[in-house]
């Protein structure tokens, strides 16, 4: 590529109006410095800071002399950076997980004879019990957070008078702020005790406790996202129904909820995502037994979730064991990303539907 072509490209990319070689040179210098520091960081060199200083100098000069161009370039860099972080996490997780997956093969997701998780001697890393534990707690959590959350969202956006809404809405948002470790602490000290005493559970920590606690924790997520979806149903649609002489509840059931259905599903999906990824409550409440409950549906039994597996074993893990934990991370990451994409897709569909493009 000739220099003039390069100029042309840079100019188009960054909207540099006055053809100015110095802008191009500056941009190139900045980019080089950044690249160098990234490489240095990746290989773990202690010289990482040098190119960063160079970059900062370039940027400072740029901001002084070519503010618009520099700002645009910086914002572009920030975007690239955000993408890079995701890419880095994804790639690193997968690369680290590969040895374990190669070691176990498909057994990692299908192997069900005891022991399913053995880190010494003849190693076995089957994620089946963890996936099952995660599945069970998530289903329990959603049985709580799904209906209650949607009902709460309906209350806030459709039923509550203004004055009540002003209180209830922030209160439920605040519920989202209670850190999971606090729930975990309460679960570990109070609920575990309560359940052992009153239900004569043979072991401390059971899936049902984690399910209930995680359900409570994902409730606010479901409420606020569903509330957004429900209140984005245009007022004109609701008025249209009411003006035909239907009751509010009929309007909610027949107009509002169907119109907001995608958004509400997206909310539930996001809630599922929160539940799947919830770590600390499971870690401190559960008894970390890497085996399937017997019978499978025994929610009062003890098993492990993917998150609590990582949190409880990262410290002792090395080589294949560590890779297996990464594999658990990959399963988490992939499922949660899939949920996020699904909820985004569903939400977009709602937008389109409301605009009549169904």
């Amino acid at each position, binding site marked *: 590529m000739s220099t003039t072509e390069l100029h042309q490209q840079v100019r188009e990319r960054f909207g540099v109006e006055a053809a100015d070689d110095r802008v191009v040179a500056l941009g190139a210098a900045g980019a080089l410095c950044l690249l160098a520091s990234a490489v240095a960081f990746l290989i773990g060199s202690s010289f990482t800071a040098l190119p960063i200083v160079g970059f900062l100098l370039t940027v400072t000069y740029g901001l002084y002399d070519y503010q618009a161009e520099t700002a645009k370039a910086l914002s572009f860099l920030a975007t690239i950076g955000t993408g890079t972080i995701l890419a880095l996490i994804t790639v690193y997780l997968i690369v680290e997980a590969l040895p374990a997956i190669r070691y176990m093969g498909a057994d990692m997701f299908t192997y069900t004879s005891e022991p399913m998780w053995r880190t010494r001697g003849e190693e076995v890393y089957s994620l089946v019990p963890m996936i099952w534990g995660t599945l069970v707690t998530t289903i329990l959590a959603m049985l709580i957070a799904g209906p209650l959350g949607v009902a709460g969202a309906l209350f806030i956006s459709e039923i509550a008078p203004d004055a009540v809404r002003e209180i209830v809405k922030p*209160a439920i948002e605040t519920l989202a*702020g209670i850190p*999971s470790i606090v729930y975990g602490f309460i679960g570990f*000290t109070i609920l575990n005790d309560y359940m052992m005493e009153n239900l004569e559970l043979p072991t401390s920590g059971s899936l049902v406790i984690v399910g209930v606690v995680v359900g409570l924790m994902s409730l606010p997520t479901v409420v606020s996202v569903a509330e957004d979806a429900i209140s984005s149903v245009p007022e004109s649609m609701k008025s249209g129904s009411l003006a035909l002489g239907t009751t509010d509840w009929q309007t909610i059931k027949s107009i509002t909820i169907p119109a907001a259905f995608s958004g509400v599903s997206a909310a539930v999906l996001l809630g599922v995502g929160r539940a799947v990824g919830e770590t600390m409550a499971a870690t401190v409440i559960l008894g970390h037994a890497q085996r399937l409950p017997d019978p499978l549906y025994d929610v009062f039994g003890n098993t492990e979730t993917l998150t609590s597996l990582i949190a409880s074993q990262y410290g002792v893990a090395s080589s294949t064991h560590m890779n297996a934990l990464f594999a658990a991370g990959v399963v988490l990451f992939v499922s949660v990303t899939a949920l996020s994409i699904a909820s985004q897709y569903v939400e977009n569909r709602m937008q389109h539907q409301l605009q009549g493009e169904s």
Partner: protein
Amino acid sequence: MSGEATNRTAAPALGAFDRVALGIVGLSIMTFLLGWTTLFQRTSPDTAVAGLSLFTLFGAVFLLAGAGLISAGLASYVGIFETTADQYTGIGTGVGFGVLGFAVGGLVTTIAFGVGATGSVAVGLGVALVTVGVVAVLPEDLGTTLPVGLLSLAWGALLVTGIVDASWFWNPPSLEATFYAPIVVPLATIALSLLVAWSGAIVSEGFGSQGRQNGAYLLIGLNAFGMIAVLLLLILFVVRKGLPKLLEGAQLGPGLSISVPFVTKGVMLGQQFNGIFPAIVGTVWLVIGAVVLAVPMGIGAAVFLTEYAEQGRFTAVIETATNALWSTPSIVYGLFGYAFLVPRFGNSNSLLAGMFVLGFMLLPLVVITSRESLKSVPDEYRDASAALGVNQWQTIRSVVLPAAMPGVITGVILGVGRIAGETAPILLVTSGQPFPARAPSILGSFRFVATPPFVQNEALLQASSALPYQLYAVITAGVGQEEAFGWGTALVLLMVVLGFYAIGIASRIYFRRKLHQ
């Protein structure tokens, strides 16, 4: 249904009808609340209310309510009262009762006849099908009262006759749990109370669309009330448990000097009152670091995506990526930080690694909220500025960003609230001593050296505590002796996090009001 026939105000006797129904609703809400207090062991099966033991009282109420509901339904059906009941109950309600029928049928067969899982599922399904079929085609006044009334009568009878009493229990062969009456009875009572209240609410409005609305609103209202109650209970509980520890040794000194050792001291030998100051400082630094890292980057990315980039595949990919990052579990970030960042940051758990990991977690939120608020800046501002001949960057800097700031600030504050309470990543990349004596001194540790990287800050590269980790440490290092310490920590953590939330929400309300005035 003609206008005249449905004009309920014409039927004078309806007052009585209403009153009975409202009475039923009132009673069932009472049993609902008592059910909860019993579950929380504030009341016990032996608590006497009006001369009756609690379970007998439950039984009496359900007998009364069942009878009331059934007679109300029949009265409406035979036309003693004019109501607006629909011709059919409808499939929706039918299916609802079907699910209930499945549960009740299945459980009763298992408990009473000891049938195995397959058998009870079969029976349950049978009961469910019959229920759906029957209820759906019943006239609405019967369909919404009879099933609930009968169930209520049955449960009432079981309780009053003492077939189910405080010593009753059921030990399912396949589950690890044993269900005792003190748990089962309140749970069943709570569930049935809701049903009865729902049915009563429908009756009180004379069935029909108004009645159904009344029933639904009652349940939804109770649900909202329940959520608020849970929030308040949680907070009150933590406050009650944590306040004594928080105030231990606290003094209101001369003048306005207040000393609260729990938040100003570490854990040290020979000190009368130990505290969590190092954890508080750790959390503060973690938050500062994360914000410094994530906010400029996030806003920058949002500006590029919203203002500069053409909306297309690239922006869609980044958008998907940020959403995915936002929902990625914290433990995954933690694992990444542990295996990737820690070896690169001086190879030991460190504040810096924690800052990066939390920053990574905060980043997507900043991008998302900044994008939202940048998008919600009206294009009119951009047009107006462009029409004055002002270039794009100056428009962004002087008009768009200031207008978007409220949204960004609110989003960041809420995000900070969330990361301040994150435990898993800290546990993996930052934690060191569980009960440190001293707080890290970041500002005092900057040193300039002649070799790259020229600036050194040892404190940044050392492990630190943080509030959520402190709580985790209490759990791992022995809740038995130090539980009070844990509650104190939980209270402070809750205050910090909820403080961020309160500020975030308040600022959002403030900015919104300001915009609308």
